[in-house]
């Protein structure tokens, strides 16, 4: 084999803050050959993104520094290269796509201008030839009717389309190496499948090498030639994908491989009381137009949903983003106004005011998606968990409240002695446990789980799913489980509602839907989730 395209030798990256130095990456070495896809796998905080960013020297200086190592790209050491050389390499020989398509495009520039800028910088193409090339690129990344999209601004595109534009920008100069930093993590499963399909096609067409950073082993298995497993800043195992997956050597790799959420929900018992019931639930947001702001139409976020949820059971609500599943949950918990009957433990609550709802709030709790956003950074864990108690049981003494907080932390398998710490001292999975403890401390009957696992690493997802299942069995909880990830839904739900455009596509017992989906849309979702397969255009959104 000839010399590798990119060769990283003993790379270490250190961060300095407040007089302290911490090593984020320690003696990492790997090679990428021409036309090869190398996956860098690890949980968040393992140093995989830092390694990738240091290839193009995108880390913030002077906070970051390189104590050791070299990054050889076609024999040149990029770490020692000056700024001018680096600028030539960036966006030309090596390009990057990032995780968050919402923020990696400039919202003030049209698509044409953003792609054109790269062509102008590196190839000095401007005017009509540039336009032809841009159209060609947009065609390549599968944007339909590219002529009409040229003048579009990022906010007019969906997440998947934005990520396609990012890829078009990355491909503009026919790079030899593409670094993809979790390119599909922020996308729906169906869109993820399409983007992966696209990347695979482009790779075989252009013969470029790819460094693929992800925490999702399913993607690695489908997609990569070789894999490097990273944890705590070191590469612990590296080898061809087949080998690593069938015969993992390192303990951490085995742990990762066994981490997929599995298991079955507890059997549904139809004699249990109905906790939550919805009949023809509708949430319509008015579209106003004209001088007098007349209502001309409605965005039908939730349009006539019937549901029934018994104690000890889980109702999974599945759909892509924008399908109205979170809006449905917020309507059921009366956090936004809606039409149609909503009954909680037999009471019709759809007309209750905020004050009337307050005594019921302790029995219906919500766990949000983002464990980093849902905990106030300025309150200690004890204060966060005790907040609900202060509202609903103000008569408790400090000691009693403290005891309840400790109990809730034990329920979610966290050490109660850590309760005076602040959220930033905990990992993502631990934070999600704290959020669950905040709900559990009030001993609710109904918990709405809004994508509680989708911001978490794969191995942590499995733990949270297990925890939720145990808590349900112990306290006879009713869950409304909202997710786009069918793997997690399958592990938890007794009943499933598949939603699209605010309407029910399919509804029924979970085993039935997973074994024999009746609708095309459900089948497409399942193909994307379980096999990372894209479905033909039109089946799901772009």
């Amino acid at each position: 084999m000839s010399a590798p395209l990119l060769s990283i030798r003993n790379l270490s990256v250190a961060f300095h803050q407040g007089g302290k130095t911490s090593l984020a990456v320690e003696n990492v070495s790997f090679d990428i050959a021409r036309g090869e896809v190398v996956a860098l796998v690890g949980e968040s905080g393992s140093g995989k993104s830092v390694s990738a960013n240091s290839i193009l020297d995108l880390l913030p200086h002077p906070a970051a520094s390189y104590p050791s190592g070299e990054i050889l790209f076609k024999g040149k050491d990029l770490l020692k290269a000056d700024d001018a050389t680096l600028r030539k390499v960036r966006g030309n020989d090596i390009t990057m796509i990032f995780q968050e398509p919402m923020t990696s495009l400039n919202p003030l520039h049209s698509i044409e201008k953003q792609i054109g800028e790269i062509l102008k910088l590196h190839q000095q193409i401007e005017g009509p030839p540039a336009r032809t090339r841009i159209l060609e690129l947009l065609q390549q990344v599968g944007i339909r009717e590219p002529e009409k999209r040229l003048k579009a601004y990022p906010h007019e595109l969906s997440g998947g389309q934005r990520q396609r534009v990012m890829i078009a920008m990355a491909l503009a100069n026919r790079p030899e190496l593409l670094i993809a930093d979790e390119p599909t993590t922020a996308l729906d499963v169906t869109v993820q499948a399409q983007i992966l399909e696209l990347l695979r096609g482009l790779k075989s067409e252009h013969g470029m090498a790819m460094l693929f950073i992800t925490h999702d082993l399913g993607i690695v298995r489908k997609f990569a030639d070789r894999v490097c497993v990273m944890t705590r800043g070191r590469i612990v195992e590296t080898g061809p994908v087949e080998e690593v997956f069938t015969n993992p050597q390192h303990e951490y790799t085995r742990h990762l491989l066994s981490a997929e959420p599995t298991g079955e929900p507890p059997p549904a018992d139809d004699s249990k009381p109905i906790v939550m019931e919805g009949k023809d639930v509708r949430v319509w947001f008015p579209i106003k137009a004209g001088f007098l702001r007349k209502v001309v139409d409605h965005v039908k976020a939730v349009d006539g949903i019937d549901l029934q949820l018994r104690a000890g059971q889980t109702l999974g609500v599945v759909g892509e983003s924008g399908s109205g599943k979170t809006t449905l949950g917020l309507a059921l918990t009366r956090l936004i106004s809606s039409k149609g009957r909503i009954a909680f433990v037999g009471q019709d609550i759809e007309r209750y005011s905020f004050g009337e709802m307050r005594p019921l709030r302790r029995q219906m709790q919500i766990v949000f998606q983002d464990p980093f956003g849902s905990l106030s950074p300025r309150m200690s864990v004890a204060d966060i968990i005790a907040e609900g108690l202060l509202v609903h049981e103000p008569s408790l003494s400090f000691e009693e409240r403290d005891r309840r907080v400790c109990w809730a932390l034990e329920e979610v398998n966290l050490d109660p002695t850590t309760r005076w710490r602040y959220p930033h001292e905990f990992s993502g999975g631990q934070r999600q446990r704290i959020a669950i403890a905040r709900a559990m401390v009030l001993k609710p009957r109904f918990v709405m789980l809004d994508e509680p696992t989708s911001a978490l690493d794969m191995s942590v997802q499995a733990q949270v799913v297990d925890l939720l299942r145990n808590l349900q069995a112990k306290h006879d909880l009713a869950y409304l489980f909202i997710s786009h990830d069918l793997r997690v839904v399958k592990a938890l739900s007794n009943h499933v509602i598949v939603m699209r455009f605010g309407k029910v596509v399919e509804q029924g017992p979970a085993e039935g839907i997973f074994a024999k989906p009746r609708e095309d849309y459900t089948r497409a979702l399942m193909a994307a989730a379980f096999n990372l397969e894209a479905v033909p255009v039109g089946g799901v959104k772009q």
Partner: protein
Amino acid sequence: MTAASTATVAREAPVAPPRRGLLSPTNLRRWENFKANRRGYWSFWLFMILFVLSLFAEFIANDRPLIASYKGEILFPVVINYPEEKFGGFLAETDYRSDFIQDEIKANGWMIWPPIRYSYDTANSNIPHSAPTKPFWLMDSQERCSGYPQGVNDPQCVTGNLNWLGTDDQARDVTARMIYGFRISVLFGLALTIASAIVGVTAGAIQGYFGGWTDLLMQRFIEIWSSMPVLYILLIIAAVLPPGFFVLLGVMLLFSWTSFVGVVRAEFLRARNFEYVRAARALGVGNWTIMYRHLLPNAMVATLTFLPFILSGSITTLTSLDFLGFGMPPGSASLGEMIAQGKKNLQAPWLGLAAFFTMSIMLSLLIFVGEAVRDAFDPRKTFR
């Protein structure tokens, strides 16, 4: 939950929170960042020293002795107002600078004077030439004591009685007026800043949190309100109401609170959709509690960064009003009035220069502190 499990938990876990340092880790980092800006850090201490000293202006520059012993009795004229009959006179207030009282006390005891024997409104009756008089170090010893009956040998011609920075056109000591003027400027600025911060943050919080019509109406109101010509209104009000510290404070407050509304409103608008705010709402926490506990800390960073600049702005406004003659009542110590005197008496440059240097040093220190505060609250700022 069983009683047994509660008991184990209670035994294992300490009930009281562990003692934390004075500052949370975030604030500790901010304090370190603040210290890293050397100029701002030194300015802060210098300003604090000056400010604290000026709070005790009565003990530094006063026309009464600090302590006096009279006929075996220890007196504290600086804090207690003794009628003159105690020393054999007839006035309601004792003029300790008069020869009669000085001789009387000296004959029957002793007294300790503050370093400067003038208050801001004491006129020096022994000036060597017509007011405004020069600073004493611009005159020789013959000249500087020529106002006293015994000339150079007069026991009253001592450092404390000399005018270090000269006198103004009413023979009042410039140093004393400067110290008192500095104090009143800073106190006025602080009072105005804190009061307008309270009003402005409350208004911004309500707008940002409730949004919708509340926001729309208040925002329009603020636009109209802040387009009013503040100085004219002040002049009109000064013509109707008797001028004074609190009247001025109140009138200025009417207009200064709006400067906080923008930042706080933006911060609340942004933060009210944070997930932890939604989580608190789902727990049933009331609006005001959410605003106070969850949202206000977010807005405080922006507000605190703003404060030093508002403070220096308030001081400048007070000085300019005094300069125009619409500020503090006549006779009170004020830097603006000193500038006005400097303008009237160009032959006495020490008046204008003293006021100029006081103002510029005070404002520069505040701006340097403001810069350091801004750095300290900037999460992206890193120091080597």
